[in-house]
């Protein structure tokens, strides 16, 4: 019994991890392209497909249900596009409309199914919240295949994906098949979401798509590392969520994964170097404490211009203090400038700009003039 439980856990953890990886890959692009909520709309729009597939085939076999879900999800994105293109209804309203109406249709179909006398219908509602524990080895194999395909597409069309993400018009002008690539990425996203429905369910699938990408974005500026980090976060959250929910009684897998992901996003937003809030606060403090150097450098430069034959001619600190506004820490600024190699003092404590400092000052002057 214990071995069986262990085996189940392994399947679930593997499935959740793979789902996290694929979501991380594709979600990075969705986040960068401002399509974060497309996943939300898509996963809701898949519900009528699930119900329809069951109504037509009469079985809960995974493959037809996934095909049905993918088809209505796809139709949902087409309807959103049609509404935005052909009316003045804004994108967000179109998304919300498709999401809720398709979901309503799915609900109607589910109640139709519930009235049918055959008992096989039970369990369709699990698609709402997902039921990771019910994952089978076959499901994991399907996920592994999808993950491989996604990885292959990303590797083969990496630069095209980059152009599609950041400058689609440029890609079109180069004659790259942007439309087809966009279609392919959306199709892969549909497949991923549909697979995710089983694990985390309709409502929480959107977090699987958005969270890894949004968290990874904080840690890096490069697309390659962002996608990798996102996939890593997805795997870690998927596996740890699955393990945690198997250890703690009555802790559902999907919401656990999402809560872990939310925690990762929170930490990333606060702690990530350069972008994180805490980091930014520290940086701001450092900037505030650092003595203002530019005016002192400009004064040094102005003084050295007075001695065209001897640019290294030094001046007393008191001269600079007289020239500068009262709130400037002249000594501190001089020390900082010396550290940066922009100014130097001689044996007598007289200060002059270095060659580098003079060039820096001229650059500043030019910048001011250009403005």
């Amino acid at each position, binding site marked *: 019994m214990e071995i069986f439980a262990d085996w189940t856990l392994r399947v679930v953890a593997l499935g959740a991890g793979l789902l996290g990886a694929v979501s991380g890959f594709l979600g990075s692009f969705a986040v960068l392209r401002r399509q974060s909520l497309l996943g939300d709309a898509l996963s809701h729009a898949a519900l009528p497909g699930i119900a329809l597939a069951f109504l037509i085939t009469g079985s809960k076999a995974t493959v037809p249900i996934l095909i049905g879900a993918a088809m209505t999800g796809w139709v949902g994105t087409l309807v959103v596009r049609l509404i935005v293109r*052909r009316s003045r209804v804004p994108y967000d309203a179109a998304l919300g409309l498709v999401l*809720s*109406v398709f*979901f309503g249709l799915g609900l109607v179909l589910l*109640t139709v199914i519930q009235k049918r006398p055959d008992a096989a219908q039970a369990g369709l509602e699990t698609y709402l919240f997902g039921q990771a524990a019910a994952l089978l080895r076959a499901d994991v194999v399907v996920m592994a295949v999808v993950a491989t395909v996604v990885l292959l597409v990303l590797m083969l069309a990496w630069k095209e994906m980059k152009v599609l993400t950041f400058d689609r018009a440029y890609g079109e002008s180069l004659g790259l098949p942007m439309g087809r690539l966009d279609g392919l990425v959306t199709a892969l996203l549909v497949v991923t979401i549909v697979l995710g429905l089983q694990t985390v369910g309709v*409502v929480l699938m959107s977090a699987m798509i958005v*969270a890894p990408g949004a968290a990874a974005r904080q840690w890096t500026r490069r697309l390659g590392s962002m996608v990798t980090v996102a996939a890593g976060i997805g795997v870690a959250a998927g596996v740890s969520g699955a393990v945690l929910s198997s250890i703690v009684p009555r802790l559902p897998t999907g919401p656990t994964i999402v809560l872990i992901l939310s925690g990762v996003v929170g930490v990333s937003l606060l702690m990530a170097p350069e972008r*994180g809030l805490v980091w930014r606060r520290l940086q701001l403090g450092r900037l505030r404490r650092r003595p203002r150097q530019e005016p002192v450098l400009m004064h040094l430069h102005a003084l050295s211009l007075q001695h065209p034959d001897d640019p290294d001619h030094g001046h007393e600190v008191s001269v600079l203090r007289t020239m500068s506004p009262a709130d400037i820490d002249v000594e501190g600024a001089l020390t900082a400038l010396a550290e940066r190699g922009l100014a130097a003092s001689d044996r007598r404590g007289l200060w002059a700009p270095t060659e580098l400092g003079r060039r820096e000052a001229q650059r500043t002057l030019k910048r001011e003039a250009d403005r």
Partner: protein
Amino acid sequence: MNPEVEILLIAVVTSVACALPGVFLVLRRLALVSDAITHAILPGIVVAFFLTGSLTSPLLVVAAAATGVLSVVLIEAMHRTRLVAEDAAIGLVFPAFFSLGVVLVTRWAGKVHLDTDSVLLGELAFAPFDRFIVGGVDLGPVALWMMSGILLLNLALIVVVFKELKLATLDPALAAVLGFSPVLLHYLLMTAVSVTAVGAFSAAGSILVVALMIAPPAAAYLLVENFKPMLLLSGGLGALGAVGGYGLARWLDVSIAGSMAVVCGLIFAGAFTFGPERGLVSQIRRRSAQRVEFAARLLAVHLLHHEGTMREAVECAVSNLNVHLGWPVPATRKAIAFTVARGLAFEEGPVLHLTEVGRRFAEDLSAGGI
């Protein structure tokens, strides 16, 4: 009252109460905030339910609405850091809240009668079971009283701050300059949306509240051009969606909330396709009319160009015009019919001639460009 009438009344009142704040959501591009709020109220509902033990207590409405507003605050705070785009912030916040709610429910599922399905999906058919009884007198279902109260609150809000809301919606910068606090108005609206969502979830379920909030206003947006008519029409379409949805649900014996969403979607699809000004059909019709008109202009200039020349009989022969203009035969035929019908040209034997009016028309065109 008989329960069916009660259900219908609750449906209509809920639908109208949702459609009114929905107008502002659609116009202010906040449609998906309704999606976020309807999900984010779950942990508030759960906690308040643990405390009060009732799904319709006023405390529950307050606590859950507070969670909804909190989620909006969080989304905006995240967006303001510029670390994530607004849509990503929405997509991050509400699943987190919702997950928290689901975990709370599942952890303590044994002790309370509340399951996540009912929050997500709602079941209007059960609404009449919860009666509002004062001093032993049955005053009707609690849900009806609650939703009527919320509807009145929404109406009061809109009437009292109508011009401020209208201004802040259509021209936020001007509203701020004139001294109306956009932030205050925004949070008033968000509070109204949260309260409405909490009130409606037990009847309609989280996700269908979104349909009731977005579909009727979006449909009205395609049908009318002014603010007040849009509000009235949204309310009307919402009520229509409720009645139609209830009818559909009765007829097919399916989920009432689901069929209300579907009928609201159909109403939008109707406005989208057949709207008198902005509908798909009139867009197509207008475009083809413009095409014919443009062709008629080219035709008139062609006739003017060859008028009185030796080749006129060849170039302007009705049967040959398509060759000379390089157009398909049906398009040519339509253009000729249009010029003749407008009195710009007439057929004389095999040749098409400009009328006096048509000549002036063509001269104007070739002088001022087409």
